[in-house]
């Protein structure tokens, strides 16, 4: 979800005609208000759907002692949300150049992930139980690199809050049984004006584990997209700032570039 930077939530989806349904809900049936958080999230997802996405990301990892290390990756995604595949390939620093991660997202369960390490010439599957680990020294976990599907979560509207100067819905999401997650639940802040997710807090029981803050939101090819994502690991008090550059949506891409074979091919 996070590297696929349309700041839309952990929630992706193949939502369809949500707005008419919302209008109908608001006008006619009070009990239907219970569906509203899902409708909000699905609308947020719908607005971020694209056939593909490409960007170059610069990551600044700032540890608890304020030491900064820089990394760069190139990100390609084909498809959207629960039906997408992505390849993330490090381009810097030099010693990790070529290290790549393939994420195959699934609409009904956790993603499949494989990591390619050129130094040993082998790909390695990232086991589901290892998805809570940090991804290559950043504050993103392997699970955070998934694009999740709305159908894998239950939602509850917690209220409205002003965040970063805009009015937001605050929504709680909880993974359903089919979804394996390190997080018991998450809180999402979704802007009312453009349905962009501007913050996600991820919890393990009552403890806040990670916070993702989306800023510098701009319309890119008619998709509101955060240009900066700050992931804060509260257990380690470490932060990773991902800056998005050269972002493009709907770039022609082929399915065959998102396979284990393609992962082994270095560019």
């Amino acid at each position, binding site marked *: 979800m996070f590297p696929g930077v349309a700041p839309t939530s952990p929630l992706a989806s193949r939502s369809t005609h949500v707005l008419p349904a919302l209008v109908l809900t608001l006008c006619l049936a009070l009990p239907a208000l219970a569906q509203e958080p899902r409708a909000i999230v699905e609308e947020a997802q719908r607005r971020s759907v694209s056939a593909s996405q490409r960007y170059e990301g610069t990551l600044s990892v700032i*540890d608890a002692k304020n*030491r900064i*290390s820089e990394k760069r990756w190139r990100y390609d995604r084909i498809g959207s949300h629960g039906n997408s595949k992505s390849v993330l390939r490090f381009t810097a620093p030099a*010693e990790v150049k070529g290290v790549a991660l393939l994420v195959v997202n699934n609409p009904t369960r956790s993603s499949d992930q494989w990591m390619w390490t050129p130094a040993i010439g082998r790909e390695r599957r990232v086991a589901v*139980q290892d998805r809570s680990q940090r991804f290559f020294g950043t504050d993103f976990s392997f699970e955070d690199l998934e694009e999740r599907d709305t159908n894998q979560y239950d939602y509850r509207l917690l209220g409205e809050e002003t965040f970063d100067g805009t009015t937001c819905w605050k929504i709680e999401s909880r993974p359903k049984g089919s979804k394996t997650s390190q997080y018991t639940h998450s809180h999402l802040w979704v802007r009312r004006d453009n349905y962009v997710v501007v913050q996600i807090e991820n919890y393990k029981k009552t403890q806040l584990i990670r916070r993702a803050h989306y800023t510098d939101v701009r319309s890119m090819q008619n998709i509101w997209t955060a240009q900066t994502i700050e992931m804060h690991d509260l257990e380690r008090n470490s932060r990773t700032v991902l800056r998005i550059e050269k972002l493009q949506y709907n770039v022609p891409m082929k399915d065959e570039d998102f396979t284990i*074979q393609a992962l082994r*091919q270095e560019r």
Partner: protein
Amino acid sequence: MPLLVVLLFLSQDYSHRGFVESRGTLYPQTAINDSSHGVGELFVRYESFYRPSQRFQFAGAVEARTDTHRQTERNFRVDFDDRSLQRPMFSVRRLSAQYRGNYRGNLTVEAGKQLVRWGKTDIVNPTDRFAPRDFLTVVDSEFLGVYALRGTWESGSETIDVLWSPFLTPSRLPLQNQRWNVPPPGAASLPVSRTIPAGTQSGIRWSHIGFVEFSAAVYSGFDHLPVFEFDPVQNVIHESYPKLKMAGGDFAVPFPWLTLKSEAAYFDYPDPSGGAFVLYVVQLERQAGEWFFVGGYSGEVVTREAGLSASFNPDRGRTRTLLGRAGYTIDTNRSVAVEGAVRHNGDGVWLKSEYSQAFGQHWRVTAGFTLIRGNPADFIGQYRRNSHGSIAVRYSF
């Protein structure tokens, strides 16, 4: 021509990487055939990839090296086949052309010198038959490229990998006059007559990905590790590379707390004096916080005893052995790792510890110590005088 090279570098379809490494190794003890205590090495590797179109890619890697211990040749030549006893000063590690197409699935065809890795487990890989190594320092071996024509077809969760290699690339063995070659008593001064067989090698591997990942592989060709026979008539040791047929497989199963991986292969040496045996590895792995652990057991079942020839076979030498590796990431720049092998009868122990720290975007310093103990008759134990400390400084670009 220089303009062409510059244009190639500026091209977006061209990528490259590499490093320069300087390494010093200190051996506290001398060996029977090696009185030195220190080895200094300088090593450069440059890898590049050029993709003129979506379908084609060219890959190349070259190396240059020298050292203080005559492990590297001193003559200026470019080596292409990795058959020399010493490491070449300049060598081509990889040089291949690759085509990708779509024929009821994804098809990749690669021709040329390339690196091929089969198998899933760590430390010992019984099915990894197209992966000869440089064993000049036995416990820190490096893979060598092989010339091959490789076709890989992938459809959904199934992949079929077919390889044909026109000739054998043998593993590079410890040099006769150096400490990692431990000859039997009295054999040190005997000349060695080396014969590399002509003939092709081929193999096929089918792999499946899903909740359980597994693969099956067969191989027919030669062993890249030699056998030695003493010829009393000529008073010479014959080094040869026997014919080999291998059938094996591997699997990985993720459980809630750890991942189980296993790999096994049946080796049949069809020569009259050749033996047959099964090598297997079972390992468990887990990541927890900043830690990772891999632990397992490597075993062997001999189904047919070989003749009187001796062999150099580090994979078999590490069977009936408990293997493990653990690592801890201290922070974004620093990490420590420990790796070890202990023979189940206690006859051989190998422990390697390493501390590594990055400085800025390009520099990394790695300091390590390797402890080797055991019985002189044991594969690991025979290197008991080769415990060593090392420090390596690497500049990556």
